[in-house]
């Protein structure tokens, strides 16, 4: 049909444009990699920062609106350099022998297992209980702004205080006495859930906001109950938001230090590789511990391993998310 042909043509032109943009991005990245390597070898990384700002300004000038584009790109690049340069320097300064030693250390393996496993549980808990809450917040109810404030509260509470709140809520002498939290996986998961829930709930709520109410009406009038409408219409349409929210909650949990340090500095957990219960530490706590023990190279090597693993998982999730997208045109 005509419409299909038109869309096919549009897709091809978009693909061609994307190929051009990809090539440009690859060329710029390569140029920056070479520039950084040269600056690093000359022990002059400051000059790389200057180069990065200048190249951003030049790209902004050419690609956008002349002086305005140059200024916007240069100012934006300041932030990127502030984040990217320490990261690049951190990676470049790693001692391969120390990294290899730490990569083979069983204690590090336990730490990595705990750092993936507990945040994963926290992300699942957040999604299971946060998704219905996000739905209700999206659809609105009396007092919803109050509830939304409570959801956002962990964003402004210092995380060490969040840890203390968990101790007041659970365990001996607390509201939920049957659930011991000090040095336990449930305690760690609770602490992680507390600090990561706002990220997931808000992203999923925005996902529900984007679902047109009339799709729900259409489902109801054609026979679906409220539950069936939620299951067959709402959930599939917020699948991507849930995945994004889950990844954000997981990533936030991986990096959490304050709340975990208070609730579960050392954690007892079942380690399937050893087939027994072991004691370990969450990565940020482990790295802090290693650092305060006096070894910057060792703590940074562990940090490098953690960073690599996190990026790999993030990319994997992004790839899976792209793969599970529904087959719609726009």
């Amino acid at each position, binding site marked *: 049909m005509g419409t299909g042909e038109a869309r096919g043509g549009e897709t091809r032109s978009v693909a061609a444009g994307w190929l051009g943009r990809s090539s440009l991005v690859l060329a710029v990245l390569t140029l920056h990699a070479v520039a950084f390597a040269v600056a690093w070898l000359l022990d002059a990384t400051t000059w790389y920062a200057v180069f990065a700002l200048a190249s951003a300004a030049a790209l902004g000038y050419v690609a956008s609106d002349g002086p305005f584009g140059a200024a916007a790109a240069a100012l934006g690049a300041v932030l990127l350099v502030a984040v990217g340069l320490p990261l690049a320097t951190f990676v470049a300064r790693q001692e391969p022998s120390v990294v290899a030693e730490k990569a083979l250390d069983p204690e590090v393996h336990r730490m990595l297992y705990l750092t993936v496993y507990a945040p994963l549980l926290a992300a699942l808990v957040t999604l299971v209980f946060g998704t219905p809450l996000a739905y209700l917040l999206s659809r609105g109810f009396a007092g919803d702004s109050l509830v939304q404030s409570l959801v956002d509260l962990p964003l402004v509470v210092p995380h060490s205080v969040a840890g203390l709140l968990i101790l007041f809520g659970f365990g001996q002498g607390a509201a939920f006495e049957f659930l011991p939290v000090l040095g336990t996986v449930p305690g760690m998961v609770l602490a992680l859930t507390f600090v990561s829930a706002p990220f997931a709930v808000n992203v999923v709520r925005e996902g529900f906001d984007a679902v*047109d109410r*009339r799709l729900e009406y259409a489902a109801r*009038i054609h*026979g679906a109950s409220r539950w069936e409408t939620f299951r067959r219409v709402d959930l599939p349409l917020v699948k991507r938001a849930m995945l994004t929210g889950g990844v954000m909650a997981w990533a936030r949990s991986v990096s959490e230090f304050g709340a975990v340090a208070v609730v579960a500095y050392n954690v007892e957990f079942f380690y399937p590789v050893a087939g027994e219960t072991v004691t370990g530490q969450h990565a940020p706590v482990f790295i802090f511990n290693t650092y305060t023990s006096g070894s910057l190279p060792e703590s940074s090597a562990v940090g490098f391993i953690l960073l690599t693993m996190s990026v790999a998982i993030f990319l994997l999730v992004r790839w899976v998310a792209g793969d599970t997208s529904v087959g*719609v045109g726009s």
Partner: protein
Amino acid sequence: MSLHAEIRARFTAPGAEPFVVDAALDADAGETLVVLGPSGSGKTLLLEAVAGFHSCEGRVAVDGRDVSDLPPEARNFGFVFQDYALFPHMTVAENVRFGERYLDDGAEVDARSLLDSLGVADLADRYPPTLSGGERQRVALARSLAVAPDAFLLDEPLSALDAPTRAALRGDLADTLADRTAVYVTHDRTTARALADRVAVMHDGQVVQHGTPDDVFERPASPFVARFTGSNVVAFDAADAGRGSDPVAIRPEHVALVAPGRGDVEGVVERAVREDAAFRVTVALDGPVGAVADGSGRDGDALAADRTLDAFAVDPPAPGDRVGVALPEERLARFDE
């Protein structure tokens, strides 16, 4: 099956005044009732309340069976939305079969046949975002037909379409809705006249006139209905013997342009705009015509009259020409007191 609805509901939205809908609808079995009204008149809210999407007071009955307390899924209505409301994550065929699992008799939905009957069978495996507006609305219609509803509720299904597609789909809708009970909401009087067995005109949350298309279009009950259905509203000088000073309505197609001095009133041509086969000529009327004093204590709008008047002409006079305007007495519609 017949559909009877009496709806009383108060709708609130942040930052807006509460809006009250208090209206009754009646559609006999096999009849298409068109609810005609301007944007903001409450016709969509009324239709959604009939469907059960909003809580309200009143009664909705199908063939005398009260369905007011039933949720939307148990009322057995079909609903066609202005913006289609197709499920974007399902194929066209899956959309059409959406309600299959909820059918009481366990019947299977033949999506291909339904799509074929609306000329879109080849789209079965496509996703809605890849379809044109007309295609989407045909699929939405097929989805509603699939659940064999007792009555169809249609919310401006043509308003988002371009003119040729609208005209084509209007024909398909006329075929589809023949012998089916339907309530069709629109602001488009052309569509209303084409599809309606009966028309209910809505204004400010209330039905202000209800009748056959001829009743409503030829004999509007108020100046509002007259203007909204496309009639002129004119008034004569009280001194004009025999006509009285109350405003009257007359449709543009019944107004004749004649030589100056030979009509009932006179005026100057303001513009002549081509509309399909004829020109719509707007005439600015002279003197006291249209100037009506309201001393009756009735709503001012009820007596207001226009100072211009539209007529259709095949060979129109030019703007600035003086013309006579003939208003046949038998075509004048007087408003209810």
